[in-house]
């Protein structure tokens, strides 16, 4: 399988004297990314306080109402307030992003570190399995995983995590391989430091930079995959207000009620844009050499 060679990238921690946040803020695109991401996070946290309606309450009298002062983004085919559902949708998207990326990172970290540090047969077997998973188009594999197991939020998050494990494992392995040859590792080993402790205490903190960049970039991808699965009717089951489900519902009526697709679509695109810009900014600050690979 030919995949882009992961570049071992270490020692790219920010210079001292200026915080990561401040350095990101100086980059105009990253600044936009930070602002959008912050708005989405705030919407997810404070959504229930801002929303005037119940996201799943059906009110047929309000069906397809256009945007107005009563319904800021209009109402859908069941008379549900779209603004409320967009706010609640941010919760689902972020939840999926956080859990699936955390799960994928954790497993990828363990497998990648094991492969890179132990080497030999373990490395060959782990990376062959990673290559095999990576060969499947992510959306297709996630789709089949969700279809095979019980549909629901937990399955969606697990499926997205699984299809992303190879990328995290590769990044960690490449970095561990580069790091383990360094003098400080040999020095620690010579004073009798145990291997596991060496890995946890010294090597892992040094490979955090590439890992942070990869996790931010794939956070946005995780949100897109969840929305795609829900759009196909195989993601978060209704009546939950997933943006993908809202678009799937709305597209049947888009000729007469285009607002039912426009607002959820803008919400997904802006969120993904925000995290993509933030990921690009982090990459430029932490790890410029990843530029051509992500």
């Amino acid at each position, binding site marked *: 399988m030919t995949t882009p060679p992961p570049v071992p990238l270490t020692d790219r921690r920010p210079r001292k004297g200026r915080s990561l946040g401040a350095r990101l803020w100086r980059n105009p695109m990253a600044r936009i990314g930070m602002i959008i991401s912050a708005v989405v996070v705030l919407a997810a946290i404070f959504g229930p306080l801002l929303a005037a309606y119940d996201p799943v309450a059906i009110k047929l009298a309000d069906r397809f109402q256009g945007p107005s002062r009563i319904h800021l983004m209009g109402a859908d085919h069941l008379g549900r307030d779209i603004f409320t559902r967009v706010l609640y949708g941010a919760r689902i998207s972020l939840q999926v992003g956080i859990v699936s990326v955390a799960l994928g990172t954790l497993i990828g970290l363990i497998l990648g570190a094991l492969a890179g540090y132990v080497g030999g047969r373990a490395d060959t077997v782990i990376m062959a399995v990673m290559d095999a998973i990576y*060969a*499947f*188009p992510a959306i297709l594999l996630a789709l*089949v995983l969700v279809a*095979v197991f019980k549909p629901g939020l937990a399955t969606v998050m697990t499926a997205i995590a699984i299809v992303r494990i190879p990328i995290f494992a590769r990044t960690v392995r490449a970095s561990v391989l580069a790091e383990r040859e360094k003098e400080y590792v040999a020095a620690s080993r010579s004073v009798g430091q145990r291997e596991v402790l060496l890995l946890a205490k010294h090597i892992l903190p040094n490979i955090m930079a590439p890992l942070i960049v990869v996790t931010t970039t794939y956070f946005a991808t995780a949100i897109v995959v969840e929305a795609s699965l829900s759009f196909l009717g195989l993601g978060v089951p209704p009546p939950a207000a997933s943006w993908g489900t809202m*678009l799937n519902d709305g597209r049947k009526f888009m000729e007469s009620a*285009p607002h039912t697709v426009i607002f959820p679509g803008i919400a997904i695109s802006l969120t993904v*844009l925000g995290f993509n*810009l933030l990921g690009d900014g982090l990459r430029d600050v932490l790890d410029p050499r990843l530029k051509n690979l992500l």
Partner: protein
Amino acid sequence: MDTMTWEPSQVLAYLIRRSLTLLPIMLLMSIIVFALIRMVPGDPIDVMYGSEGMDQIRREALTQELGLDQPIFIQYGRWLWRAVRGDLGNSYRAGMPVLRLIGQRLPATLLLSFAALFLSLLIALPLGLLAAVKRNSGADIGAMIFAILGISMPNFWSGILFVLVFAVWLGWLPSIGYVSPFQDFFKSLRHLILPAITLGWSLAGTTTRLARSSLLEELGKDYVRTARGKGLRERTVLLTHALRNALIPTVTMIGLQLGFLLGGTVVVETVFAWPGVGLLVVDSIFARDYPVVQGVVLVIAVLVVAINLLVDVIYTVLDPRIRLG
């Protein structure tokens, strides 16, 4: 490293050698596909044949025929042997062999994928070139906004938006459906435009950014300064020197994106009711027609590996700096 050209026999030997290294990966992939469907809850015969209510004698005969009473690795071996010979089972919804069903649907998917790839290159390469040459200008910013929007807008959303604007509001193009180019070429083209743009835009986004950054990197190198220093026209420096080298990483990445493109067809075909394998797999999931799901996943995965191998070989043969190791 010395430059040389390759004899066809050398290329073939390299191709075979590379294919052999891929064998373990392909085997692992087949295990994943086999295991996936085996994880579906319920009796495998019901899962594979949709046979609830089948009489006991027929059920036992099938159990023996499929080797379901055998250990799991023997079952896998039999399944793999049948798959290698092109027997992917039968679709109980369409009542025909899965491979024939996939064969009927694959041309539409390939047409869409290659049209999307073609469109994305048509847009991305000149745009990346313009952005790099006019760095930090309005054109550069515009190109980067185009690229980041393409990357950030999910396919199904941009697809819906295109349908809304170009089919529903302006009425210029059909909103859904497929016409074979052999049946009516121009009608086929009209149906192809929106899905191909939808699928191609995200790819164009990645390619524009990569073309720009690769070209900027090349323009900063010594050989470009030398070329300029000896009085070559800027146009020559750009097109015959820098661009050629900048294209190498770009083309490689495009090859690697083909898997992404085939995955993207699942969503885009659903939006546009495009009768390819992407729509087939989604429909089959809802109909619980698991032999088809299994077959499509296997065929697409093999296709992705084969395309990547091909890109790798072409790239190796074209780039004289790389030896056929």
